[in-house]
């Protein structure tokens, strides 16, 4: 599948990719799915998601304790190592305690880039939090206007929203095709595609995704054995595509996910009419939430159960970052709720390095047998 390679190349060498587009756009980095990319994109700035470093973490150790998650440490490592020199700016939506402090550390140590905090509400279930969310988005719009020196019109924002809706709809379409016929595309390829789409120029990504949808649409006759088991991945980001490989070799398929490198990125179209910022806010309010945001006491669990049912999955694999509190706090109740619905669960705590493949494979294989 040729179309996937371009995504793979961007994932393999994001710095190289960013260099290639640097002459055309300013570039802003981010590390949270609550980043209002639509505003950044509308301002003619390229938003790029950071996933942490591929190398060893050394320089970040002078700023962050070893009990911080590998995402926070890895992103800082890349910045300190000069791997993010293509960035003109960095935005920090308020996510969790660790990202909150990463923002401070970044502001104090990475002087060369524009720095912006988007201090979102932590709850998304009250009128005043919705008003505040909209206020924060308005403020971000003003600040990016001031930084780029160009005024953003509502028409610019709407055009950006249309682009993002297209991008997200295509990603979702591919997920649906894969859920219907899991054999048409490997999980590893899905992981590259979605991460690539957060690195690449969004219009370029759309073009490649259009091709991919056509190619995959023609391949739906590729049937999957009826005995193939179906699993869902839950968590934040997945930096270890080997996990998909292991699941597949063990005779199962990942048919959907609840990941930031997955459906949390593409779920929820944005209204294309009306006030564009209010529409962006509504997406965050309506979309399935990250555990660092409060919606209700059981919303996330209900979402996962529904997701598993819709995609006929028998089990959920949690990929929790080691030291990530929001996800760790949710796990016991999610496990109980999912098991109450007859779903199997497996928790994998993921650090910078995966445990030895054999050990991981044994755990995943054993789990898939129980599914």
């Amino acid at each position, binding site marked *: 599948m040729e179309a996937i390679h371009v995504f793979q190349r961007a994932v393999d060498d994001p710095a190289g990719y960013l260099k290639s587009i640097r002459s055309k756009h300013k570039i802003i980095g981010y590390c949270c799915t609550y980043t209002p990319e639509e505003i950044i994109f509308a301002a003619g700035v390229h938003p790029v998601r950071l996933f942490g470093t591929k190398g060893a973490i050394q320089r970040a150790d*002078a*700023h*962050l*304790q070893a*009990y*911080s998650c590998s995402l*926070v440490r890895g992103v800082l490592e890349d910045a300190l190592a000069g791997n993010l020199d293509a960035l003109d700016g960095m935005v920090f939506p*308020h996510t*969790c*305690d*660790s990202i*909150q*402090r*990463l*923002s*401070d*550390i970044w*502001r*104090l*140590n990475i002087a060369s880039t524009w720095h912006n*905090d988007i*201090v*979102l*509400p*932590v*709850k998304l279930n*009250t009128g*005043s*939090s919705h*008003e*505040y969310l909209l*206020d*924060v988005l308005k*403020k971000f719009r003003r600040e990016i206007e001031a930084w780029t020196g160009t005024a953003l019109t509502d028409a610019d924002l709407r055009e950006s929203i249309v682009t993002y809706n297209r991008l997200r709809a295509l990603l979702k379409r591919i997920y649906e095709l894969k859920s219907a016929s899991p054999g048409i595309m490997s999980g590893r390829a899905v992981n590259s595609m979605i991460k690539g789409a957060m690195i690449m120029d969004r219009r370029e990504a759309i073009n490649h995704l259009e091709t991919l949808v056509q190619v995959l649409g023609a391949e739906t006759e590729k049937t999957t054995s009826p005995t193939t088991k179906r699993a869902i991945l839950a968590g934040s980001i997945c930096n270890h595509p080997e996990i998909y490989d292991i699941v597949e070799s063990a005779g199962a398929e990942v048919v959907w996910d609840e990941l930031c490198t997955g459906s949390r990125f593409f779920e929820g179209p944005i209204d294309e009419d009306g006030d564009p910022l209010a529409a962006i806010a509504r997406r965050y309010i309506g979309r399935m939430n990250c*555990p*660092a945001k*409060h919606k209700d*006491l*059981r919303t996330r669990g209900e979402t996962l159960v529904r997701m598993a049912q819709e995609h006929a999955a028998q089990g959920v694999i949690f990929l*929790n970052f*080691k*030291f990530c*509190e*929001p996800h*760790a*706090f*949710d*796990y*016991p*109740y999610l*496990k109980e709720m999912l098991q109450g619905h007859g779903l199997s669960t497996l928790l994998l*705590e993921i650090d910078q390095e995966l445990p030895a493949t054999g050990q991981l494979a044994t755990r995943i294989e054993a789990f898939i047998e129980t599914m």
Partner: protein
Amino acid sequence: MAEDKPKDPEKDKLKIKSAKRMREIMTAYYIDAKTARDNGKKVAWITSGGPVEALHVMDVIPVYPENHSAMIGATKMGGQLCELAENMGYCADICSYARSDIACATINGGPIGGLPAPDFLVCCNNICGTVMKWYEVQARYFNVPLFIFDTPICHTGFPDETRRYVEKQTMEYIAFLEQMCGKAFDFDRMMEVGKLSLQGQRLWQDILDTTVNRPSPMSAFDAFFYMAMIVTLRGTQIAVDFYQELLEEMRQRAANQIGVLPHEKYRLLWDNLAIWHKMKWLSDKFASHDACLVADTYTSAWCSSMKYLDDNDFLKSMVQGYTRIYLNIGVDQMADIIKGMITKYDVDGIVMHSNRSCKPYSLGQYDIRKRIQDEFGLPILMIEADMVDERSFSESQIETRIDAFMEVIKEKKG
């Protein structure tokens, strides 16, 4: 009999006399909380930095899981309870206050047989995002309403939109309490409670400030003990009366040059929460070097936003007062506050507790350390531990590091 033992009058002189009264008050407070239902009162669980004053207005008894977890730590029951939480599926890396509380609730364990069950929960995230997840767990467990008082972090300034949001939430909070209690909120009483809260904070700061004296009449270890009142009884006459007595005692001690150590040669500043399960050991260890921990960033956090609070309009001023506390600000602002304390308390070095359980407090400490070393050249010791979970404490390694640190201080100071 203990009373018949011959006392060492010299040692006895150093002891703080208010400790007995403090224990009596805290015991009475917990008895009140545990018998609240029998007395027709409601119980709310609230975070340590939460706007408790409104609960006093409504005659609700506030209970503090954090204070309780500190007690669990101090009685060395933390490891066991944390392990129980881990068996329930909670990862060993999450906050040990939360782990011990979540486990304790299921067995009514710990030093006081568990906390009284809540009628509702009030969670203010000015101290961390952890509390929101923790209170979600407890709201599910007890099946009670949860009010989240969201105080957006103030990395640099205090934006208008934050002010508006917190102002609106203040009114929502009052409406929530009216609904929970089935009665109207008394705004006049709020004025009174607000005054008492601020009075308590001022007294607490005055008490902490008596340590500018040489020798220091108390240490941070004492502050860790006496802080329970500013946390749990903030906004009451009881706290004001007790702190007046304590302040009087401290001033007397200072006037009579009674120090908490027999020989105070070195003065240190403590950063982060206490290591509750090692208080005595650490206190003795530093005392053996004639080093007194004269101040800390933790106990003073409860009076860290007094400049924003207004006696005559507590409710309105608490919008800033509760949002801009120490911790809910940028690392550079925290470093500036520590710099002010270095000068004020005239310290020779800093001991930083890198606390595995508290990310908003601990992440950023390395940068704070660097800023302070660059500006003051002060020796700084970083101890990695956990506030409650004694299983993460490496005693021999930490002892060696404290000894080495004190050598540096002695050499520097002579």
